[in-house]
């Protein structure tokens, strides 16, 4: 009989999908952004303005510039675009490659390690990993619902970065026309890139600035990939190693497909629905994992009381569970050992032997998710989180406000920029250590 659970792990699939998706978003945003801000320059100045920050008076200047200058600028941008696009792809694949190397070693170590160490308190380990995986899936899963937001964030961060880059690169290109270059340089140096100007002697920062289009996807894919490796390693305790390849391939394919979709289209309804459904799925998995984690802890506790007799391995029915802690027990349909029920167990958290802990854990998990989502929704609608003292929310609110202002200034090409607002934004951003790209940009 073809045992599906031996070849496919729903948990592994979703974790890989999640991580691939995030990497794909960043790469697609990067590519879309590069394309939009560099290649469409000659047709629509506003596009350039959308990508970069320019004083409104300069727009008039641009319109009056002659054909040669525009053509030259286009050529320059095309070269730049190709160069940066190459950096993006190189970065992505370098990150992926490195993560595969580390991940491979990691997983091998994981499996070698497992056999020796975990025999005695095996269920504690399984429980800890289940709860850990559940919490992380929950935190990461939220971002899937806000792909557009994520995309916005990245767009804004990139626009800052690209502007800095553009300047640096433009300066380094010998053919750069001085007057045009000056226009940009002056503005950017005065506004966004004050720290860089001051640290020009710092080669490392220069280097990373110059190759930020490499490092950004590199760090992102590396980080996401390693996350995936850690979780799959954890999940591997519960499911056989043979279930990983198929889950991995499917997860990556889906992730890449969604990434392409994102790149080609803007905000789209079917995608949104897909994301919602898959997030629901992800949370069902996480709820099950959380419940199962608690269940594992209780099981190990029971086994300890029984002097190490592991009855759960015997199967279902009388004698396999702690009757004093049982909320229901069905003498069949065991999610740990019985074929299709394992899948049911992995996806929906089914167990044929529910304990008080696993039941209340499941309920509590969902209540937490509901409360957090309701809270975030409220925050999005009203700007603050309910029930939490405003004092504690100041920092969060400030961040959001800054982000909003920046976003508006960067993306709202129709409204003329207010220089005083800009200065304010710049002041805020100058204090942020992540302005230079040597610090990974974490959404």
């Amino acid at each position, binding site marked *: 009989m073809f045992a599906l659970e031996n070849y496919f792990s729903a948990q592994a699939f979703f974790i890989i999908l999640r991580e691939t998706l995030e990497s794909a978003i960043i790469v697609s945003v990067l590519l879309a952004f590069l394309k939009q801000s560099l290649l469409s320059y000659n047709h629509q100045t506003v596009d350039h303005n959308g990508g970069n920050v320019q004083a409104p008076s300069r727009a008039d200047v641009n319109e009056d510039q002659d054909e040669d200058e525009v053509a030259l600028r286009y050529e320059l941008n095309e070269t730049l675009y190709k160069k940066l696009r190459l950096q993006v792809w190189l970065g992505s694949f370098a990150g992926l490659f490195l993560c595969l190397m580390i991940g491979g070693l990691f997983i091998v170590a994981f499996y070698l390690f497992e056999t020796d160490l975990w025999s005695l308190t095996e269920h504690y380990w399984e429980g800890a990993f289940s709860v850990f995986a559940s919490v992380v899936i929950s935190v990461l899963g939220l971002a899937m619902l806000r792909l557009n937001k994520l995309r916005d964030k990245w767009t804004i961060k990139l626009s800052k970065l690209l502007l800095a880059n553009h300047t640096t690169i433009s300066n380094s290109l010998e053919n750069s026309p001085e007057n045009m270059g000056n226009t940009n340089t002056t503005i950017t140096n005065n506004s966004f890139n004050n720290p860089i100007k001051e640290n020009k002697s710092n080669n490392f920062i220069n280097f990373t600035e110059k190759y930020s289009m490499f490092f950004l996807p590199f760090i992102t894919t590396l980080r996401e990939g390693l996350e995936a490796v850690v979780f799959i390693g954890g999940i591997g305790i519960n499911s056989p190693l043979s279930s990983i390849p198929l889950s991995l391939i499917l997860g990556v394919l889906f992730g890449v497909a969604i990434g392409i979709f994102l790149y080609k289209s803007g905000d789209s309804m079917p995608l949104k629905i897909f994301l919602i459904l898959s997030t629901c799925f992800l949370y069902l998995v996480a709820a099950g994992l959380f419940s199962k984690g608690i269940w594992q802890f209780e099981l190990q506790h029971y086994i300890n009381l029984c002097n190490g007799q592991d*009855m759960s391995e015997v199967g279902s029915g009388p004698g396999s569970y702690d009757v004093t802690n049982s909320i229901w027990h069905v003498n069949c349909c065991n999610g740990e050992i019985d074929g299709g029920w394992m899948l049911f167990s992995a996806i929906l958290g089914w167990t044929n032997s529910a304990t008080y802990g696993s039941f209340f854990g499941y309920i509590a998990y969902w209540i937490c998710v509901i409360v957090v989502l309701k809270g975030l929704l409220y925050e999005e609608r*009203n700007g603050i989180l309910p029930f939490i003292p405003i004092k504690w929310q100041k920092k969060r609110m400030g961040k959001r406000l800054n982000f909003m202002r920046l976003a508006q200034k960067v993306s709202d090409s129709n409204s003329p920029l207010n220089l005083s607002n800009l200065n304010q934004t710049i002041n805020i951003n100058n204090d942020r250590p992540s302005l230079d790209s040597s610090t990974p940009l974490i959404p």
Partner: protein
Amino acid sequence: MLFKRLLTVLGAAVGFAAAETHTLYWNATWADANPDGYFERPVVSCNGTFPWPQVHINKGDTVLLYLTNGLGDHNTTVHFHGIFQHNSNEMDGPEMVNQCPIPDGETMLYNFTITDQAGAYWYHSHTRGQYADGFRGAFIIHDTDEEPFTYDEEVSVTIAEWYHDLSDPLIATFLNLYNPTGAEPIPQTLLFNDSYNCTWDVQPNTTYKLNIISTGFFVSQYFWIEDHNMTVVQIDGINVTPNTTDLLYITAAQRYTVLITTKDDTSQNYAIMQKMDEDMLDNEDTVISLNNTSTMSYDSSNGAVEQSYIDSYDSMMDDFYLEPVDAIEIYDDYDYLITIDVIMTNLDNGINYAFFNNITYTSPKVPTLTTVFTAGEEATNQIVYGTNTHAYVLQKDEIVQIVVNNQDTGKHPFHLHGHVFQVLERHESISDDDSPVGYNESDHAEWPQYPMRRDTFYVKPQSYFVIRFKADNPGVWFFHCHIEWHLIQGLAITLIEDPLSIQANQSLSDSYLSACEAAGVPTAGNAAGNTEDYLDLTGQNVQCKDLPAGFTARGIVALVFSCITGIVGCVVIGIYGMAEVHGIEKLVVEDLNVSVNDNDDNEDTGSQSVYDVEVAHTGDVDGETGSASGNSSSARKV
């Protein structure tokens, strides 16, 4: 430190002796003893000494045993294993079956005559687990008739396992919520004659009749003597056609009488080996030694021996194929069939019990024999004995067939009181990976013409045995697993054989009744102690209820709640996913009148942070959801 212990060697009873009466006064008391040389512990002693005496009587003799309980808060009883107790059913011993428990300070007289039995028997307490604490000994009936074999000397030895813990704490941890698999307590050592480092001094060129009596409690033992063959001539008191082997497999409570002819050469001593059947042990963590070595000494100057090894257990004798000397033919068909399945499972309290069919034996409130005597005509109705004693009423002289289908993966030695039974069939063991094989009346192995008879016979894992006997001994007879742990778990049935004959020919002694009174047990009534209506079992002892196999109301509620929270959670995820609000940050400013501090706008002197946000009118925050959403739509226009 080497102790040499001389075995009690008794010359074979020679010549004819008139029937004697043996009067014994036994006071069961606690004493400290160290029978295995590893650990001193309290034991149940006989008049302060341990081990208990070997009792030797002749066929036809009468035993008058005054058993006094000096064990403090423990009750006691004694059962003479294998003795038919014709017309003396109340002397058989099982507590709450054939008698009331003897409480502290009480004395009960056991008065019985051996009319038609000879051979190796034994006695032990039939009070829950007590013989693990030492109350056990050999009971040898010497035949006054000519035996069908010849020998020079007779020697009796007992073999048993030993625990370093008392039976009380062992039972407490065994019948426990946290022993869900019903794993039996693991013994620490094996004893030979309830002792260790024993030596049997033998003469060369001599034929010995060796009675090997298992007074065991749990584990079966392999028994062999280095370089010596054993000719089995008797099992459980039944003479059999001689069968020579070098390896015996002896379960708890079985007896083998073997002839051993010593060698000509006295230059070497030989090892007498006992070894636990480790298949019966769930683990060996607390076993000190799986085997025990005693010395068969031809010459004491040869010293003690090293243990001997065997390569396999393949040469082990199969008792099924032994043939009784008296060659009684197989009983023609049966009149009454009892088919019982051995099942081990857990009840609602989480404790693992043993079941025949779906009943785990639970003691009645009145001993079954008392009910027989006081129920009058109703004694033939098995209802009066209660539903949890698993009682069967047998008619006089009918042929009873018992089929035991063992659905458990262990071996179980079953013992029938008051009878020896013919063994028709024992199926080979079935591996744990396969499902149990039950007896099929229309498809079974061919049965022997002269089947082997004994009183304790073991069934192999996941298979069955078929036995027959003639109900010609009126009385209440217990049929149970002689692994005492399993009896404690309830692996027993009660056979009430010809109750009206019991009423007619036997009576309850004063000693019996006074023990009951002292123990506070009613001296009349049905299993529930009801003397008015014997068919009314209200208040009888019953087993704990079954564990539910599926969902209970509680489980359904929990599952429904889990589903609801899951669905609500997904709906909330959907709502959150669909609702995306842009430009909300502006709302913060508008709604709350929040100002993001510029350097010149900073009114909060305590903080230097540019992120500082101040709320000017917190009053606006509360209860403004409606206007907030209104604002949010206007915010988008900006």
